C-alpha cells in the first residue's frame, strides 16, 4: 500500500493515460504553464509537451466543442473544465452535441470524449464557485456520469473512462485534493459501471457519493462505538445508476439514508429514493430519508457555508434519530 493525496492520484491517472495512448491529450484552462488550476497537471507540460497538454483560452463552449470534434475525428481528448460552475457555458456542446450525436446519426458517430470537472464547496468561494450540479448531468441520456469519492477512484476512473466509446463526465472534488489516502501500489483502472459497498453493516444503508463517502465512513465509525452497524454504499456512477447494489443493501438493512451536498429538490437522492420505493418497498421498515444541501446559494462565511451541506456530525445525528436505539 502507498499513501497518496487525491491530487496525486488524479495526476497519476492522467500521466498513465498519456503514456499508454498517443491519441490522448489534455486540454483545459491553465493546465499547462500554470501547472493546473488546482495543481493536478503540474509538470505534465514539461514531460509531454504542448501538443499533449494544451492550454486553452477562456472559451468553455469553444474548447469543449473542440474536444467533442476531436473525439469525433478519432482522438481521445481529456477536456478539463476548471470547475462545474463554468460548465454552464459548455452545456450546449455537452447536451446538444456529445449526448445526442450517436443517437441522431442512427448509431454512426461515436463521441469518446472525457470531460473532467472540479466541483463542490469548502473554501469559502461563495455562490458562483460552489455548485454541486451532479443532478443536472445525471439527468441526461447518452452520457456516463462518474463521481470520484475515494483515492482508489481518483487513481482509476479516468483510465476506464478513456476506454469508453461514449462521452464520460467525471466529477472531481476540489475539497479533497490535499487529502491523503491509501491505495495499493499497483492500483490502476477501476470499474465504472457499479456502485460499491465501502463498509458492510446491517442496521441502515447510508447511500452517498463524492465528498459524502468519507464523511459517511467517519460517521459510521462514530456510530459503531454505540453499537450501530451502518452499511456505506458509494454510488460512484450517477448515470446509469447501479441500482442493484443499493437495492440489495436496503433489502439487507431495511432502512436507508441518502446523503449528498447537492440541493435536495430534484437531486440524485430523489432518484435513488424513488427507485428504492419502486423496487424495494416491501423491504422498508422505515421511510427512506435524505440529508442534502440546504436549498440556498452557498454563502461566503465559514460557519454558514459549513451549515449549508451535511457534515459528519449531521449524518451521525440523523442516523441516531432514525435508529433511536
Amino acid at each position, binding site marked *: 500500500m502507498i499513501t497518496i493525496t487525491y491530487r496525486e492520484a488524479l495526476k497519476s491517472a492522467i500521466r498513465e493515460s498519456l503514456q499508454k495512448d498517443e491519441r490522448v491529450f489534455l486540454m483545459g484552462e491553465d493546465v499547462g504553464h500554470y501547472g493546473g488550476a488546482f495543481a493536478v497537471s503540474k509538470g505534465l507540460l514539461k514531460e509531454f509537451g504542448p501538443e499533449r497538454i494544451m492550454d486553452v483560452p477562456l472559451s468553455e463552449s469553444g474548447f469543449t466543442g473542440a474536444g467533442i470534434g476531436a473525439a469525433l475525428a478519432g482522438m481521445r481528448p481529456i477536456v478539463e473544465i476548471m470547475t462545474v460552475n463554468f460548465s454552464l457555458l459548455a452545456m450546449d456542446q455537452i447536451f446538444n452535441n456529445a449526448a445526442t450525436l450517436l443517437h441522431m446519426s442512427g448509431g454512426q458517430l461515436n463521441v469518446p470524449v472525457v470531460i473532467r470537472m472540479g466541483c463542490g464547496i469548502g473554501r469559502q468561494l461563495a455562490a458562483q464557485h460552489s455548485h454541486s450540479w451532479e443532478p443536472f448531468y445525471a439527468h441526461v441520456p447518452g452520457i456516463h456520469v462518474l463521481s470520484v469519492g475515494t483515492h482508489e477512484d481518483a487513481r482509476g476512473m479516468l483510465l476506464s473512462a478513456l476506454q469508453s466509446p461514449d462521452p464520460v463526465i467525471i466529477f472531481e472534488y476540489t475539497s479533497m485534493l490535499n487529502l491523503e489516502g491509501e491505495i495499493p501500489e499497483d492500483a490502476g483502472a477501476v470499474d465504472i459501471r457499479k456502485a460499491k459497498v465501502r463498509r458492510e453493516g446491517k442496521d441502515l444503508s447510508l447511500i452517498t457519493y463524492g465528498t459524502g463517502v468519507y464523511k459517511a465512513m467517519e460517521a459510521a465509525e462514530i456510530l459503531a462505538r454505540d453499537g450501530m452497524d451502518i452499511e456505506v454504499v458509494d454510488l460512484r456512477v450517477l448515470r446509469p445508476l447501479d441500482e442493484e447494489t443499493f437495492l440489495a443493501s436496503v433489502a439487507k438493512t*431495511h432502512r436507508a439514508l441518502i446523503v449528498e451536498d447537492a440541493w435536495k429538490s430534484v437531486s440524485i437522492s430523489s432518484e435513488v429514493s424513488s427507485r428504492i420505493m419502486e423496487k424495494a418497498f416491501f423491504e422498508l*421498515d422505515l421511510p427512506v430519508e435524505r440529508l442534502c444541501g440546504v436549498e440556498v446559494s452557498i454563502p461566503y462565511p465559514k460557519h454558514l457555508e459549513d451549515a449549508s451541506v451535511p457534515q459528519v456530525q449531521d449524518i451521525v445525528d440523523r442516523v441516531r434519530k432514525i435508529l433511536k436505539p
Partner: protein
Amino acid sequence: MISFKMPSLGADMEDGTLVEWRKQPGDLLQRGDILADVDTQKGLIEIEFFGEGVLEKQLVEEGQKVPVGTVLALIRPVGAEAEQVVPPAAAPEPKKEAIPMEPILQEEKPASPPVATEKTKRIKISPLARKMAEMHQMDISQIKGTGPEGAIVKADIEKRLAEIVPEKEVVEKPREVLQQAPVQQAAIPESEAIRKAVAAAMSRSNQDIPHYYLEKRMDMSKALAWLKEANKERSVQQRLLPVALFIKAVAKALDDVPDLNAVWENGLQRKNEINIGFVVSLRTGGIMVPAILNADTLSMDAVMACLNDIIPRARAFKLRSSELSQSTFTITSIGEGGGDKVFGVIYPPQVGIVGFGEIRDEAVVHEGMIGIKPVVDVTLAADHRATDGLIGGKFLAALNKYLQNPASL
C-alpha cells in the same frame, strides 16, 4: 382530376383563411405558380401548386376559413379531357367521438346497518412489518407500534413473536425476500384465539371499510338440472355440490370484473391469482376462511376435491398458512333453514364478499306467468373505496350469467 387541398405548412397549422384567389378557372397553371393567398396565425402565405394543369373549379370562397386537408380547387392535369365536374364530397367533419356518459349512480341503500361515520383509526405499519405479520398470521391490531407516527415496525413484530412463540426462529433471507414471501407450515392456534382473531378482524372491517350492499335473486333451475345430470356420471364420493358451482361461477365473474379480485392498501391493488376464500363454520364455534388457490384454473371436480380436503382439515385446525392468508375474495353461505340471504362482512384487505342464501323454491314470474322455481338470493358486500354499485352490479350480472350456463364453468 387533381383535388388540391389546403396544405399543411407546419405541425401547428390547423387551418387557413382563403383571402384571395390568384388564379381563375381556365387559367393554365405551371409548377411553382401561386394559386391563392391564405391567412394563417403566422401571417399571409402564398399557396403554390406543384404540378401542371388547368384550374377547373374553385371550391372555397374568398374569406372562408377551412381546416388543413380541405379540397380548395379542382385542377385538370395537362392532357386530360374535360370531364363532368363532380364535386368531391365535402371534407368530412373531424369525427367527434361520442363520449360515453357514465350513468349517474343511484345511491345504494345498504340493507344492513349503516357505515360507521366517525373517523376510523388506520393502523400504521411498515411494509416489512406487515409482510412479517402476514407470514406469522399475527393480528396487527393487537400490536403496539414504536416506529415513527406510532407505526408498527420490524422490532415490534419481533418482540411479539418472541412473546408468543419464543422458540420460533425469525428467518430473513435478503435476496429471496425481495420476491415472494416463503410459504411455511404453521400450527394453528387454539379456537379461543381464533374467535378473538375473527372478532378483531370483523371489528376492524366494520370500522375501516365503508360497505355497500347489492342483492340479486338468481334462478337455479338450469344449474341444479345440470348438476343432476353431471352427478349421474359420478360416484357418491365425487358428487358435485352446488357450492362448487358457486365457487367456479364466482371465479369466472371475478375474471370478468377484476376490480373485485383485489386488496385495498393505499389504493386498489388488483391480484393476478383468483384465490377464493370460503367461510367454514367450526363446530366449536367461530369460523375459518380457507382459500381455494387459483380457483379459476381448477375444474369443477378439482374444486370439489379441494373442498373435500380442506373442510375437514379446517375443522381439525390443520390448514397451511398460505391457505389462510392468500384469499383474494370470499364466499359465505347460509345452510338449510339458516336464512334466506346472508350479508357478509368483508375480510380485510379484500374488497368484497359474496353471500349465498339457501336454495329454495319460490314463486317467480316467467314469461308473464307465475311458476315455481328453485332460486338463491345472492348478495355482494363490497368496499366502496375500491368499487361502486356499477362494478358490483356488473359482478352480480356476470355471476348470474354463469349460473345460467353451468356447462361453461
